């Protein structure tokens, strides 16, 4: 049990007071805010956030901000380009000795999935290509949350959104952003979820030690967008991991490693049935074919994962 004890010890290492300010306008139970506050505790206050349009744009509405450092708002497609400008400016200041090494800041991009999986992809690709030293945090609530949960490139197959109704929900498939990012061979890519704070903290710590492009996707359970009671946010995030829907993994040194392989893997249905956006799969009649298809997709993913 020594490994487990070590783990418990590490849990006690998680911060008990928090850097991110209270009083933000995010929804009660927002899984994205949960992930952000856990990330910020590890990342620290010597950071600048470059934020594309989305729910989290509302974090910093003059004169209020939950951050302890600067925050820059960019157009939806351009946050990584904004980060390039901030990084360049810091580098010039360092070179001119107007900023000391100790005063240097970590440049962090913060966007939703709409930006990360969609219109921000080319700016991200360019930033990785230029080997920009930055951290990208995408909170993935699987839709355009701020504007009323229209579908995005991150919306899972069969989910109901404001723009995908009917008995079969969203006809498309969730884009594999992890694989797209990894294909660029950046310094670090990881998936996290606020419901697994220890896994998240370790990954952010690791990313902090590295330089170059470091990209994180946080699954962000969203009570109004996904249709569930805010108190269930953590349970739903945890179920996403335990059913295998949201694989926790990282890419470093040219290899992909799964950091938490669910044993035994719970049926995907347990995750789906807790969310209003999948209610049409269960009522008025169970859609056995579609449920089996969703399960098969997850099974196929894990079949190619070597343990």
């Amino acid at each position, binding site marked *: 049990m020594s490994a487990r004890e070590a783990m418990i010890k590490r849990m006690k290492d998680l911060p008990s007071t928090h850097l991110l300010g209270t009083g*933000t306008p995010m929804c009660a139970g927002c899984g994205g805010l949960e992930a952000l506050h856990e990330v910020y505790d590890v990342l620290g206050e010597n950071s600048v956030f470059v934020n594309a349009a989305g729910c989290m744009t509302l974090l910093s509405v003059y004169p209020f901000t939950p951050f302890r450092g600067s925050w820059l708002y960019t157009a939806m497609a351009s946050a990584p380009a904004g980060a390039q400008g901030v990084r360049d400016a810091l580098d010039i200041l360092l070179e001119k000795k107007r900023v000391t090494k100790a005063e240097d800041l970590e440049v962090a991009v913060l966007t939703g999935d709409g930006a990360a999986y969609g219109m921000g992809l080319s700016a991200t690709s360019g930033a990785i290509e230029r080997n920009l030293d930055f951290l990208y945090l995408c909170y993935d609530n699987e839709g355009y949350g701020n504007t009323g949960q229209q579908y995005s490139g991150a919306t899972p197959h069969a989910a109901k959104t404001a723009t995908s109704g009917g008995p079969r929900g969203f006809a498309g498939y969730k884009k594999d952003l992890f694989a797209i990012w990894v294909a660029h061979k950046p310094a670090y890519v990881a998936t996290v979820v606020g419901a697994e704070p220890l896994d998240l903290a370790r990954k952010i710590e690791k990313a902090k030690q590295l330089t170059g492009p470091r990209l994180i996707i946080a699954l962000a359970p969203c009570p109004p967008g996904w249709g569930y009671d805010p108190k269930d946010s*953590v349970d739903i995030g945890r179920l996403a991991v335990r059913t295998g829907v949201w694989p926790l993994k990282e890419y470093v040194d040219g290899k992909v490693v799964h950091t938490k392989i669910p044993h035994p893997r719970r049926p995907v249905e347990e995750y789906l049935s807790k969310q209003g956006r999948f209610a049409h799969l269960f009522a008025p009649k169970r859609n056995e074919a579609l449920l089996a298809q969703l399960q098969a997709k997850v099974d196929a993913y894990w079949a190619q994962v070597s343990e």
Partner: protein
Amino acid sequence: MYRIRFHGRGGQGMKTASRMLGSAFFAEGFEVQDAPRYGAERRGAPIFAYVRADRAPINERGIIRQPDLVIVADDSLVAVPAAGVLGGMTSDTVLLINSHESPDTWRHRLNAQSTILVLPEPFEPEDHAELPYAGAACAGAAAQLLGVIPWASMEQALRHELAELAPAVIETNVTRARTAFERMEPHRGCVREGRAVSAADYVPPNWVEVPFEAARISAPAIHAPATSVEVKTGLWRTLRPVIDYDRCSRCWWVCSSFCPDSAINVDAAGRPEIDYDHCKGCMICVAQCPPHAIETIPEHDAQAAEGGKE
């Protein structure tokens, strides 16, 4: 022109109520504006929506400052200054509150000359964020109080706006709206049209002239960390988590790590403390606490026990 303002919490359906009433007005041949106030319309947060209706084209824009009818879906908002429920009310304004307390109690409490009516929920929910039919009831009551919208138009508007919902849900909404419409029968037409306001009478606020300056000076920079603590999101809460310290096992991190809002801090001895000025009442801590040491109390009961938080 009729100017109607709906107040509620995010999730109580005030935006839908304004649309239903707006559509009903439109069906009666009125020119109509209906809109929610755009912003962070989060669940539990105070929000408002408004409707303007007139036989003539409407040139007024923006939020309604002098309402003829104010409808409040959640009576706990009346005392919340940020909700602005009483803003611009005069003795001619009709105030309708979804409340179990009597109009006299409210008149006394508010020291108001206005016509005050109440429309109690048929049952008292534990969680005030769960008032799924309040929107329909408020719109139905408004139609009757205005006196210019017959039930048939109201019902048609309601069915049109809710068309995407399940049939049973639509029927419950119709029934609730109809009940509210009928309850308000004795007060039919008590809302009178407000005066037309001419742009010529507009008195600008006392603007402060700001000279044109370089961005370094004029940009809206924030010079202190974490200023968001000044925003009291505790007002959104409809349920209150309360820690039973006898049962809390000082696990150190569960409630504090999971609270999305950084509203639970743990001291050196491992004792968690909830910051009620900012806790939004998501109840994740209640669901996650391993020894189930956190209880749920309806916020209105908690405040009543504290002797009413005015």
